[in-house]
Every structure is written in structure tokens, then in C-alpha cells.
């Protein structure tokens, strides 16, 4: 049990590339911290630095208050679950799980007791004498987890542990991991590129991009109050819709018309600018609704849009619609976000297109114009120059 602290940590490779740039992050004792971001954002490097598998170029890394920069992995008392499990193929499941204890010269009967206990937790009892080659993917994954928990380490490090499982098993294992962490109350750092895992598992989520920590917050806070365009676009599926617009006094000009600003939004925007200003507007798909199903008690704006495509999910319908965009949507941040998502060359992902998540009872059909409703309380406004949110309530990035 221990807290982990990054204090201005830099990872620089010999060729000068900085994988992690001045990262400061405090992970509390018994906390489940998720590091999430697109591939190559430095999240795995950060995890490997905690494990001691990567050197730290600058700054301090503390585990349990002690600087561990120069400590070998074996002296850090942390357990790691690898993406490809890294089970020792020449050992049985029992030997795999007991390997760390054996290295520590724990007595035989204690090793046996603890391995049996972990196997019971993970329902691996009948597989203990088998070799990893004879196990299914899900079983191997559980052995890898078991190898970590028998050690009762200071912290668990997990490097995309579920990404090799098929979709159904992944959902199951997600629950197993979550339950396990809650029961053991061990500090856990979990790396993933899957924002669903990030949202469902973590006490707090740290979003990274290009080696820089973007925002550290609870999943709810990340979703409701993203600090910048990147976080807003990365968290949430389907992703937030962005379009160009402008604020001018009490109204915000959007492709859907000049929408009056609600008081709360207006107040937070006033601190940023006065007069007319070009902005990027972000609206989550669920903040659109079929006008006939518009919820009571919210300020809204109704507009008409041509539905281009509908995707029925059963419980809801994703309605893709086009809008006329005269404001050119230009932002460095947005372009990078699309590149990270691999959709920069998909025409529909650029401006002029949005997704609404409407009620399943809605009669939206492709090719028809439909009245849609926009929840104006939930509009996000971003500054196109630096991508920062202008509507975010508080700003406390990286605070422990």
C-alpha cells in the first residue's frame, strides 16, 4: 500500500525524443488511477518508469514517499500485468504465480497457501498444474492477474491488460479487475487507450497526449468539464461534435442558428472576452434530442436538420445530420485530435456533420428533415487559439 508521485518527471530517449514531458501526478494510496491516451502518448512509458523498466531522465518518482529513481525493479515491490501477459511458458500456473514468492525465499507452505488463495479468487483452481500454452486467453489473463495479487505488493501496474481479449470477455474481466481492486485496496495504475475502460474503472483518470498530461479528474468530471478540446473529443463515444461558431454578447452563433446563452454559460464566457469572438463549439451527441422527445425543465433550442443516416442501437438511435457551416473550423488541437483518432482524412469527420443521440421512439429517418432539440445548458465552448475550454468551471489540472 503506497502512494505514487511523479514530480516533474521527464523521459528523454538518447535520440532526444521526449516520451514524457514534465509530468507531475500524485496517485493516492489505494486509488485506481487510469492513464489514458492515444497510442504513443507516453502512458506506457510512464507506467514502465514506475516499474523501474525505464530510466527517469529528469525529476523524481516517489513510491510511498521514497524516491525510487535509482532503485532496481526488484526492490520496488510492485507487481505488473503485461499486455501480452508474459507468463513463463516453461512453468505451470502454480509455478508462475509463486515465482515472485520463491525468489523472495518465502517458505513452501506459505507459497502454496497464497497461490491457492489467489487461484480461488480468480477461479483458476482446476488449472493450477497446467502450462500457459494449454490455457485460453481469458485464463492466461487471470493467471497474469494472479501472479500480481499473490505478491501483495505496494502497487499494481497494468499495461492494457484486457486489450488482447475479445469484446465480451473484456467486459467480464473489467468487472473482475474492478472488484479485485476494491477488495484488495491496493494502489493501481492502469494504462489503456480504451476510453470506456478508463471511464468505468478509474477513481481518477489522467488523460495524456504527446507526453503531456492534459487533465486529471474523476471520470464524471472529465466528461462534464473537459479542460480542452482534446479531452473533450477523446472521452466519450460517440465523440463530441465540434463546429465553428462565434459568441456575441448574449447569443452564440452556431450553424443551427443564433442560440441565446444560458446565464451560467454567459457568466463564465464573460471572463474570457467581451464583444464578438470566434470559438469552437462542442456538443455531446446526447445533448441533442428529437424535438418531440425534448426533456422538460431544460433550456433548449430547436432547429431543423437533414438526417443523413440513422444507426439504431436498440435503446437509442444515432442520427447523423449535416448542417451548413459558414464558419471555418480551424484549430490545431482539433486537427491533432482527428489525427490521433485516425479520422483526419474521413470527410464526414470534418465540419458540417454531427451525430445526435435520440430516443429510440423517435421517428427519424435518413433523407428527411427533422426537428432536433439542443440542450443549450450543456454547450461547451473552446478557444480556437489554444483549444482551452472557456466554459469549464474550475481549473485544477494535475492536483493530487
Amino acid at each position, binding site marked *: 500500500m503506497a502512494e505514487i508521485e511523479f514530480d516533474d518527471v521527464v523521459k528523454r530517449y538518447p535520440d532526444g525524443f521526449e516520451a514524457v514531458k514534465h509530468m507531475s501526478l500524485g496517485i493516492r494510496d489505494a486509488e485506481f488511477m487510469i492513464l489514458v491516451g492515444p497510442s504513443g502518448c507516453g502512458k506506457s512509458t510512464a507506467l514502465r518508469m514506475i*516499474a*523501474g*523498466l525505464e530510466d527517469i531522465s529528469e525529476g523524481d518518482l516517489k513510491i510511498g514517499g521514497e524516491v525510487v529513481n535509482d532503485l*532496481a*525493479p*526488484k526492490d520496488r515491490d*510492485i*507487481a*505488473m500485468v*503485461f499486455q*501480452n*501477459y*508474459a*507468463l*513463463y*511458458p*516453461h512453468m505451470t500456473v502454480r509455478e508462475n504465480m509463486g*515465482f*515472485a514468492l520463491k*525468489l*523472495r525465499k518465502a517458505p513452501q507452505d506459505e507459497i502454496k497457501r497464497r497461490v491457492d488463495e489467489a487461484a480461488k479468487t480468480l477461479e483458476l483452481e482446476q488449472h493450477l498444474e497446467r*502450462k*500457459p*500454452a*494449454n*490455457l485460453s*486467453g481469458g485464463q*492466461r489473463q487471470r493467471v497474469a492477474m494472479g*501472479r500480481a495479487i499473490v*505478491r501483495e505488493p505496494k502497487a499494481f*501496474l497494468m499495461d492494457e491488460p484486457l486489450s*488482447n481479449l475479445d469484446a465480451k470477455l473484456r467486459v467480464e474481466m473489467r468487472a473482475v479487475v474492478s472488484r479485485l481492486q476494491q477488495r484488495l485496496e491496493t494502489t493501481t495504475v492502469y494504462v489503456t487507450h480504451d476510453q470506456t475502460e478508463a471511464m468505468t474503472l478509474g477513481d481518477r483518470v489522467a488523460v495524456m497526449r504527446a507526453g503531456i498530461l492534459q487533465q486529471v479528474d474523476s471520470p464524471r468530471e472529465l466528461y462534464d468539464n473537459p479542460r480542452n478540446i482534446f479531452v473533450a473529443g477523446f472521452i466519450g463515444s460517440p465523440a463530441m461534435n465540434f463546429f465553428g461558431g462565434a459568441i456575441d454578447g448574449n447569443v452564440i452563433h452556431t450553424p443551427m442558428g443564433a442560440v441565446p446563452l444560458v446565464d451560467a454559460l454567459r457568466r463564465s464566457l464573460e471572463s474570457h472576452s467581451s464583444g464578438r469572438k470566434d470559438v469552437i463549439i462542442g456538443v455531446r451527441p446526447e445533448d441533442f434530442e428529437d424535438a418531440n422527445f425534448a426533456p422538460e425543465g431544460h433550456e433548449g433550442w430547436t432547429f431543423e436538420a437533414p438526417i443523413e443516416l440513422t444507426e439504431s442501437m436498440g435503446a437509442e438511435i444515432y442520427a447523423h445530420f449535416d448542417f451548413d457551416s459558414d464558419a471555418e473550423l480551424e484549430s490545431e488541437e482539433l486537427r491533432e485530435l482527428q489525427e490521433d483518432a485516425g479520422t483526419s482524412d474521413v470527410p464526414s469527420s470534418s465540419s458540417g456533420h454531427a451525430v445526435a443521440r435520440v430516443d429510440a421512439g423517435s421517428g427519424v429517418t435518413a433523407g428527411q428533415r427533422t426537428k432536433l432539440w439542443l440542450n443549450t445548458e450543456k454547450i461547451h465552448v473552446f478557444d480556437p487559439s489554444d483549444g482551452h475550454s472557456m466554459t469549464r468551471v474550475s481549473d485544477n489540472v494535475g492536483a493530487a
Partner: protein
Amino acid sequence: MASVATTPKPTTTTPEVAKKRKARPAGPKTPWWMWIVIAAIVVFCLFPFYWLINISLKTGNDLLSSSLFPPNPTLDNYRSIFKNPDFTKALRNSAVVALSTTVLALMVGSFCAYALARLKLRGKGVILAIVLTISTFPQIAIAAPLFKLWSDIGLFNTWLGLIIPYLTFALPLSVYILVSFFKEIPRDLEEAALVDGATHFQAFRKVVVPLAAPGLATAGILTFIGAWNEFLLAVTLTSSSKARTVPAAIAFFTGATEHEVAYGSISAASVVISVPLILLVLFFQKRIVAGLTAGAVKG
């Protein structure tokens, strides 16, 4: 009555079912002429060895007979060579020299190969190329200088005097084989061991080496065969049964008179020293079968 689609009950895999599945032919049937070709190759390869056994079972005038089977098979040749102290001592020398060479080559070679396979080292390719080049040097080039040097420093006619030059060809070979095996082992496994609390050496010994066992077996067998069969240096660098190995000792076998060539005992001795190699290869054949790393990472 509404018809409802029924799902066929899944059949469980019983041993009988598994047998049936395996029984399916893996590919086209081997044509008859292929068997003739195979037989021809087998005879071509094994006949010389058979002839060696044939001769080793003959004595006296029978040695001149060219019949396919020895007219009066006898084990006299075998009895005589095992009574000959020159031969039994040579057997011991061979065993000591070949085994020591193998063990040393595997130990030093695996450290060296591990470094070459894992460390970020500039000029790795060059080092590996040099290592391989050394093993191609003709031994006769070093035989004479070594004879002089060994005489001067007292290594002439000793076990160590043979083991050291043998390592010059054994090491490059084992390094070369082991580098490719070590490279195959996923790095994650070592990292897992390190995080599990192993030192670098423990990770090497308990995870890497067991997984590279097929490579170690291959390198070990080739080294052992090379050292066991070596003749030129063995003849040059030994002078008595104190250190002379079997291939050299056989060359000094004499018949009843000095001018008679002892075909019978030479053949018997040749058969005797072939047997360990054959057993070795048969025994380790299973180890060489790959697939030991199966299941290490996601399959």
C-alpha cells in the same frame, strides 16, 4: 404448431472423436517412387557405417573377404581394443576434453550471446561477423604456432591444451546459434521476472535459459560432436596416452607387426566412438523440437 429453429447439441470432444479428426490425411499421399528414392538415400548414407561394423566383426583372413556379411562374426576386435590401455585412456581423454569444451562453450557462449541479443550495442553486427569469421579459419594455420607455444608454456600434451583451441571453434558456433534463440524470447518475460523480484542474472538463469533449452541443446550437440571428432589438433598437440583423444589414438593403432594395418581394431574403435554421438543425437532430438515458447504471449 409454430416451428422453432433448434440448435444442434454440441458434440463433446471424446478421445474417439479426436482420433477420427487426427486420422484425416495431412496432405497428398506419398507416391510409390518416392519410397524408392528414400530407400536409395538411406542405403547411400548408412552403407559405409554398415561396412565399418562388418569389418569390425572380422579377424585375420576374413578381413580380405568382400561378402556382405562377415563369414565368422566375432567380437575379438572389440575385446582387444578394450584391453588396450592406449584406447581406454584415449576414451577417457576424449570424454573429458569434449565434455569440458561443451560445458565451457555453452556457459561463456550463452553469456556472450545474451549480451549480443539484448544489449543496445553499437557494432553488434560487426562483432557477430567477426565471431563467425574466426570459426572459418583453417585449423592448420594455428596448429604449428600452437605446438610451439604450448611446448613453451607447458600446455603441450594436456587436456587444457586441447580444450582451449577447441573453444576457438566451439564458442563462435554456440554464440551464433544462441543469439538467434535468445532473440526469439519475448523481452516481456524478462521484464516480468525483473518486476517479480529477480535480479538480471536470475531472470537470465530462471527464465531465459530454460526457454532457450532447444538452442542450448543444439549448440551443445554440435560443439560436442566437433570436439569429439577433432583430429588435426589432437594429433599435433598430444604425444602420449596422457592426453591423446580417440581419433588421434586410432591413427596410432598397429597390427601384429609394424607394417600391418589393424583394420579390425580400427573399425571396432570407430564403431565404439560413433555410438555416443548417435545416442546423444537420438536423446536430444526431442529437446530440439521447437514450440517450447508456445503460450508465453498471446497466441
